[in-house]
């Protein structure tokens, strides 16, 4: 118990036992500021703008437009080739000679009205 009474921190006034060289704090701000790198140096290490960086956005934009152009072009080509196929198929189905139709009509025993009717119904 006696030992515990020997030392109580709260009974001692906090005292800083350290010192600094004379005038240290007077020049501290100046010394710290002098040791800081210049902003130019900061920029030169972090954000150095090279010619490549300058033209890069334009190149990217040009590449994007070229891409879009070729996409549109490809889409148009595909769609027009589809039309050609349809047209080709249509030609195959519609090329009938008049002689063929006449002979068909004769053998089919069909009048004009029935022919018209059947064509309209088929079309619908």
């Amino acid at each position, binding site marked *: 118990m006696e*030992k*515990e009474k*020997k*030392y*109580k*921190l*709260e009974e*001692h006034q*906090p*005292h*800083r*036992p*350290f*010192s*600094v*060289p004379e005038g*240290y*704090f007077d020049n*501290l*701000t100046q*010394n*710290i*500021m002098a*040791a*800081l*790198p210049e*902003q*130019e140096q*900061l920029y030169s290490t972090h954000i150095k703008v090279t010619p490549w960086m300058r033209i890069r956005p334009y190149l990217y934009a040009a590449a994007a437009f070229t891409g879009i152009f070729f996409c549109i072009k490809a889409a148009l080509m595909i769609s027009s080739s589809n039309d050609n196929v349809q047209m080709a198929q249509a030609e195959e189905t519609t090329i009938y000679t008049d002689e063929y139709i006449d002979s068909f009509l004769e053998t089919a025993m069909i009048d004009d009205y029935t022919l018209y009717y059947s064509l309209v119904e088929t079309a619908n």
Partner: protein
Amino acid sequence: MAMMAYDERRILEMLREDEISRRRAFESIVNNFSEQLYWQIRHMVLSHEDANDILQNTFIKAWTNIDSFMGYSRISTWLYRIAVNETLTFLNRQRTTVPLETDEEGELSVADRLESDPYFDGDLTERQLQEAIATLPDKQRLVFNMKYFNEMKYEEISEALGTSVGALKASFHIAVKKIEEYFNNID
């Protein structure tokens, strides 16, 4: 050019402006915080030269990372965090690179360093107090120094270390008990 008065709102505005304004604003920050940060660091590393180096590094880091700080917290909190990190990194490096010719508690090392330090002017009890503090874990030592020597409020320490006030009070209480125990054992 006269040093501008410390006005945190104005400083934050100036840090977003051109290079000259940024430098002036930062100078005001350095002027306002350098001494208190120095003492915080000095109590941890003991030597003036080491404390001065760490303080310089703290402000260089703050300056080079000023963009990442913007609006993050109070300037003091931000600076204390950098200073604490720099100090702990230094102490860890020191432990791994400098072989300690000491007993387990590092008493001789601290005593040796303080005896050979021309900027330590404490008496025997104050040297023993430093030796006792040196036996504490780093975080506990930080809290103790901030509270006891730098007389910071728990709320301020809480902001700087990101630890709850309750945990800090407990940490300080344990540190005081350990220090008193240390003194009672050496008598």
